[in-house]
């Protein structure tokens, strides 16, 4: 009894250390930014406005990452349809704003959930390769956007009947509690708390863990793996839709490129946060830490004056390094099945 509880404690202890490690790295990046400011390489890193910039960027990446981490945890790597899911739901919302704020939001959510259902159904039921399938959905959706809106960006109608709705929509991104905390951040915190609970404490979370660790064993344990996979893709699409609405509110325009890059930013945040691409390992709290790191890093790179393309290169390199370290450390755990 005694030895058992000690072992349990030590394993949850190491989990906390791992999560803490992610936040430690985030802190190191903050210190790096501070040092760069002290040496005069960048100006006002530590200003309130810049910290708010970081937090806002973290909120958007984090919202996408929290949902997508369910897909990663289920052993299906990532949802690559996130960018156009974000873009598409933005168009839908702006189109529907003339009928009021709530119908617009609900309409966007319904469309987002449909994309998630489609992804989850096809990948769960027919065992489609998740990356290839969601990538295909991404491009099909992109095609639909360009076809329907004839390759145009659309703007909310400021003159017509939906003025009040437009004003409300506008405030999604701009609403600040106590002049500081933006609505996306509040949403992110709620999602992290709920997500962590779902992942660790609900029957769905436990089934997801078993499924992500060994799909066939899960099936042979009587777990409805198809449903578990379906739900995880629906969750990814749900948070992508929320992030899509926030971005659209920020830019005040429905554009196909609104979600560009969020797929990879989110995956990188997830992997940095300690969730392995093999599935069944990691936590939502870790993913939040990963999003923080990505947000701070982006901010520093922008302040230093590194161009967008070079930033992509840096993120890509970090992704490769983290996945590499992960793979090596998993391998060195060494399994002797003698």
């Amino acid at each position: 009894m005694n030895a058992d509880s000690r072992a349990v404690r030590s394993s949850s202890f190491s989990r906390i250390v791992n999560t803490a490690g992610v936040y430690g790295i985030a802190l190191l990046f903050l210190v790096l930014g501070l040092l760069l400011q002290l040496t005069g390489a960048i100006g006002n890193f530590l200003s309130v406005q810049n910290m708010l910039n970081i937090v806002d960027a973290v909120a958007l990446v984090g919202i996408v990452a929290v949902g997508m981490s369910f897909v990663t945890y289920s052993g299906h790597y990532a949802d690559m349809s996130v960018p156009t899911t974000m873009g598409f739901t933005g168009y839908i919302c702006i189109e529907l704003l003339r009928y009021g704020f709530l119908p617009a939001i609900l309409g966007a959510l319904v469309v987002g959930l449909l994309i998630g259902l489609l992804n989850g159904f096809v990948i769960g039921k027919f065992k489609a390769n998740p990356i290839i399938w969601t990538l295909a959905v991404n491009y099909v959706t992109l095609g639909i956007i360009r076809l329907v809106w004839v390759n145009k960006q659309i703007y909310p109608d400021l003159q017509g009947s939906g003025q009040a709705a437009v004003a409300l929509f506008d405030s999604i991104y701009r609403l600040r509690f106590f002049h500081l905390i933006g609505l996306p951040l509040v949403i992110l915190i709620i999602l992290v708390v709920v997500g962590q609970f779902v992942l660790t404490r609900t029957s769905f979370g436990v089934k997801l863990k078993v499924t992500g660790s060994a799909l066939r064993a899960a099936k042979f344990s009587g777990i409805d793996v198809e449903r578990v996979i379906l739900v995880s893709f629906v969750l990814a699409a749900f948070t992508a839709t929320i992030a899509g609405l926030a971005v659209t509110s920020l830019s005040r325009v429905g554009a196909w490129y609104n979600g560009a890059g969020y797929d990879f930013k989110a995956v990188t945040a997830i992997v940095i946060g300690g969730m392995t691409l093999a599935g069944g390992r990691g936590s939502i709290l870790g993913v939040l830490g990963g999003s923080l790191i990505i947000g701070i890093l982006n901010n520093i790179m922008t302040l230093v004056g590194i161009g967008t393309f070079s930033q992509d290169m840096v993120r890509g390199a970090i992704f490769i390094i983290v996945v590499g370290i992960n793979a090596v450390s998993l391998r060195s755990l060494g399994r002797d099945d003698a």
Partner: protein
Amino acid sequence: MTERETGPALEMKNVSKRFPGTIAVDDVSFEVSPGEVHALVGENGAGKSTLMKVLAGSFDDYTGTIAVNGRVETLHSPTMAKKCGIGMIYQELSLARPISITENLLAGRLPRRGFLLDKKRAREQAQELLQHVGLDLNVDLPIEDISQHEAQLVEIAKVLGNKPSILVMDEPTSALSREEVDRLFAIIGNLKKQRIAIVYISHHLPEIFRIADRVTVMRDAKKIATKSITEVSREEIVQMMVGRSVKEFYKRSERSLGDVRLTVRGLTRLGFFHDVSFQARRGEIIGICGLSGAGRTELARVLVGLDKAEEGTIELDGKPVKGSSMAAFLEQGIAYLTEDRKIEGLCLRLAVDDNILSAIIDRLSSASVFSKSRGAPLVERLIGELAIYPPDPSRTVGNLSGGNQQKVLLAKWLASEPRVLILDEPTRGVDIGAKLTIHTSIEKLAREGCTVLLISSDLPELVGLCDRVIIMRKGHFTREMNYSECSEESLLLAANGEGSA
């Protein structure tokens, strides 16, 4: 083959291999002469597989010396081991399933003509290799289109193609039927004539007495003894393996049978089994005996809802079983312990408790909130009951020995409190200690009223545990034997279609 005919082909001296926290091979010396079959036995976790992995070049940090044909070699990589003429045949096949037999056999050394592959010559070479193992197959077939036991022989042919002077066989017969075992032993006889040194790892003692010249017993990472096969008895080997004497392996306890629980009528899955009917009572252990390919696993898959039967009915306690998924069948109390422990059975990356509770997640949840602590006493009880070692619920299952993994798999199904438990080869490749524990808990389960269907190729197991044994042959139930009629010999004869039918 070699210039040295007198010295040993392989000489391992004071070899040790440590893993973080444990020592897997402790100061072991071991030698094999050319043309000798040297059996290596021990319970799971005794260190024999690790010792052979050292030989295969899997580790670059072992200590001690290894001499091959009199020359000391540093076996720090698989390439090096291969170069020294060491061939390994594992239980798990190393064949690529989608590509052809030829390409598998000649991987890395396909004959060329200029820049192009010489397909004709490749086919001839492949055919020749297959002849060594007595197989006559179309070498263009992909591995996935041939049977498991044919694939096993292809694997052996592949390793022989590298012309090894030392050959290690790890449980080569575990997936083979009796005729195939005979064929394999004939092959081994040929290899002996070619003065190849063979290390033969097996749990199956009768086999060892048939083909081995010497036997080395390992226990707890150490070598216990090396004996000539003519100077030891089966009991002595078992005693050295377990460190205690297993006087009577099977002690039958009295069980009373209850009402009919499972009724199967005219069950047919075309091409696999036909018109299968039987009844099973509460508390009854029914064995299903047959050669590989007789349709036993296919029958099990239908009985647990994984596959659908074309005809026939399954009734549980007088009511037809509802639904068509494994989850639905499980909910009604039909559980299935698969023969494929590593892929279908366990989540190797998860902890012992996660695995044990994985089939009862919904039962431990209220309003979708899962309570692991509610399952903790159950996990603790099962770990104790099955003597799972180490007795630590948070230990990763992949790091346990094979026998303990199998116990965890059984614990998972015991936790689900099934009404009918179908066991498919529950003790294959498992050491004697674990086997004993598993048998005890199967008996206990039956005493508590569960109906057990035991599919097994282990004849003593069937004879020792079952109330009745049904013989399955080529997809049909051909015979049924009571406990009193059962013996290893009678079962074997019946499974082969001999004896009175």
